[in-house]
């Protein structure tokens, strides 16, 4: 963010320094930078981006950065929804991986019909996209009703779709394993002749829409208000149940888009193995972004940076020849360190140092 790079007056250098350190994006950005630096160190050509050709001779951009941006797409989109859900309902949606399977199943069924090797699109891709998003939103609405109306803890409520989702996805495809025609793959790979991977474009669009919505509506304010204190939000004319429900539906929409991109990548969907454990990564992204998992904070930029951080970490470990399955070990260590330094007890211990937990929420506490 530009704010961090503001040049400080010599007079106010100290306070400007403080401002930067206290900015809510400080830790996420520093951490991402740190990872990128390590990457550059271990692989000197890390930042290089070149124009190459793919198997059919179309120009494509190649480079580590491009790969990270490309591969992080689903995670970034899910992190956006997860941030909203966490903020409003003080809990997380653990069903997103399973609902992506549902979305993927619906999309494949729409595009491939009942054939396993269709030679043409059975329906326009836009129809598939819309139906996929609707499926995602229906799942979100289901979770939302349980959370908002029945006051069930988000984790328990979403455990239901977590259990059933992958099976429902398989049911949606009728048990088939179809492979869609190559033109469906444009959205998860490249549009012929256009060198930038399509998922990156989709990410940009989704992120832009997100920030536009946050700017042009009161979503952010309402979500935070409800997440902090739903009793007094109600006395200010808000309907906490409706807002929680809305955030879950938005989460469902994000799942729809992510599911679309994911199923387009290889033009086939295996509901039982698609995006394994992505729900945990999405939650981790939210936490890395400086959001409280206890609700009430809405640091969207942080979550997005968090998502890219996770992807960078994964890519770095792959460069280091660490087995993909062992990547979680490093994630675990990072989670514990990042969360531990924010707990009250540890904070008290280090109280003479910079109060890290306040970076996320408070700027200059003062008593009146």
């Amino acid at each position, binding site marked *: 963010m530009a704010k961090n790079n503001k040049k400080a007056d010599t007079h106010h250098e100290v306070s400007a320094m403080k401002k930067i350190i206290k900015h809510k994006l400080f830790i996420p950005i520093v951490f991402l930078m740190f990872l990128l630096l390590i990457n550059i160190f271990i692989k000197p050509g890390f930042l290089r981006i070149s124009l190459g050709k793919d198997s059919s001779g179309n120009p494509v951009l190649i480079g580590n950065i491009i790969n990270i941006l490309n591969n992080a797409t689903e995670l970034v989109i899910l992190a956006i929804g997860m941030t909203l859900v966490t903020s409003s309902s003080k809990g997380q949606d653990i069903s997103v991986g399973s609902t992506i399977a549902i979305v993927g199943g619906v999309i494949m069924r729409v595009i491939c019909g009942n054939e396993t090797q269709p030679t043409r699109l059975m329906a326009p891709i836009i129809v598939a996209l819309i139906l996929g998003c609707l499926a995602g939103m229906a799942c979100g609405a289901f979770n939302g009703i349980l959370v908002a109306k029945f006051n069930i803890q988000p984790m328990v409520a979403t455990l239901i779709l977590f259990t059933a989702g992958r099976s429902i996805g398989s049911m949606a495809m009728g048990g088939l394993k179809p492979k869609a025609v190559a033109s469906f793959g444009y959205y998860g790979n490249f549009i012929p002749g256009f060198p930038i991977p399509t998922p990156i474009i989709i990410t940009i669009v989704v992120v832009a829409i997100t920030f536009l919505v946050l700017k042009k509506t009161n979503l952010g304010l309402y979500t935070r208000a409800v997440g902090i204190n739903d009793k*007094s939000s109600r006395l*200010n004319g808000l309907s906490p149940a409706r807002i929680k429900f809305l955030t879950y539906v938005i989460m469902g929409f994000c799942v729809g888009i992510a599911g679309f991109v994911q199923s387009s990548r290889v033009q086939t969907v295996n509901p039982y193995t698609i995006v394994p454990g992505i729900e945990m990564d999405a939650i981790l992204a939210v936490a890395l972004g400086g959001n409280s998992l206890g609700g009430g904070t809405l640091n969207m930029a942080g979550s997005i940076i968090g998502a890219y951080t996770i992807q960078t970490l994964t890519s770095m470990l792959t460069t280091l020849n660490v087995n993909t399955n062992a990547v979680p070990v490093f994630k675990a260590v990072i989670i514990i360190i990042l969360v531990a330094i924010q707990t009250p007890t540890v904070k008290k211990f280090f109280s003479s140092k910079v109060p890290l937990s306040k970076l996320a929420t408070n700027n200059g506490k003062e008593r009146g």
Partner: protein
Amino acid sequence: MQNILLTMKNIYKSFPGVRALQNVDFTLCEGEIHALMGENGAGKSTLIKVLTGVYSKDAGEIHIKGVDKPINVKSPQEAHKLGISTVYQEISLCPNLTVTENLFIGRNEDLLVNWKKCNKKAESILESLKIPAKPGQQLSNCSIAVQQMVAIARAVDMDCKVLILDEPTSSLDEQEVAKLFSLMRELKSRGVGIIFVTHFLEQMYEICDKVTVLRGGELVGEYQVSELPMVELVAKMMGKELGDLANIQNKGKLNAESSKEIIVEAEGLASDRGIKPFDFKAHKGEVTGFAGLLGSGRSECVRAIFGADRVIKGRLKIKGEEASITSPLKAMKKGIGYLPEDRQRDGIIGDLSVRDNIILALQTMRGFFRPFTKSQAQAFAEEYINILGIKTASADTPVSSLSGGNQQKVILARWLLTHPDYLILDEPTRGIDIGTKVEIQRLVLKLASEGMSITFISSEIEEMLRTCSRLIVMRDLQVVGELEGDDMTQDKIMYTIAGVSK
């Protein structure tokens, strides 16, 4: 002369911005039931918390029988060991455990417990105190009264000398209160000293020997109950004129007479919070008030008007038009504003900035798709920070880091920004310093003179007398009288509250 069990001398305690206790003395004898009375913010609960070690005192001495030196209680556990036990209004037992378990858990660290022996012991305790509960019964299946008695039994069994009952009767019905009282008498005969905190006058007269009255963190006095008429007690609790406030004149009265336009009119309104149906009218430019002691139903009345509680009966007219108010938003759109009684729980949204807290109500009325731009919001916030003199580092500061008085001003700003026709202020001056109190009262009168209709609720009777032109008097969730003009005197109000006709 009875044996003195406990003395507290010259107790001082202050919190940032508030002096909660100043030079308070308290004495308790063996076998005595001693009432501790006072309105909100009088310092009752602070005194209790100092005694039980929840708070540490700033200055003063506490002596307890059997310990030579002044004691310094650091935690509730330590208080237990010294023989001081507390039973709170909200049961501090575990409802999901059995009666026996609640009596004995946490009293030793052994892994194994002989529950058979405990059950027998529990049975004998329950029997000797005549508590109608079975040892193996789950606590949540007992009535609140029995739960309270179990809590008392636990305290007694742990050899407590001083038993503090903090508003134990507020959720009991008459029969249950009678049972509790007979238990208290039983303990009294055993020589336990009981401190009884309550706001029910009649109950106090029924059971207590002595009463200590606090007001505004200061000691008013200690009296023999039999020598203190109820009216005098009410007067002592509510206090007399405070010099600084005297110069505020009630200009509202004049306006009320000149304006006959009715803004809000309730007929037979009742909500699911248990208030009896009541009628109410508020005129343009008038300041009305709901008077009554804590728990008399004054907040419930205004909550019903604002749609904060579910209305189950009655009609509401706003500016002559029938209005169905089923949610706060509908009330807001009809031009009603409501500053709630419990600032922390219902008022502020702690981690949001001062700016967001100020614009929130207006923003919700404006709608989801029409947010204010940052500069608009900033302008609103700055305007009201200046008007009300809110002391904050900036509009970005989270409201939770402000002092109580400034938090209250932020909520006030929130409602003033919506420019309501009818503004309800429920205890706007509770727990805030005297300077801000005066400011808020002045503001109320100024707003009324500009034509706003206001309902002002306060535990302090002079505040209401100074600001209101008409008072609705409540007792036990029921409207028991309405006072206007020359009838509005302290005496009259107290007689009406005490239920004595004169």
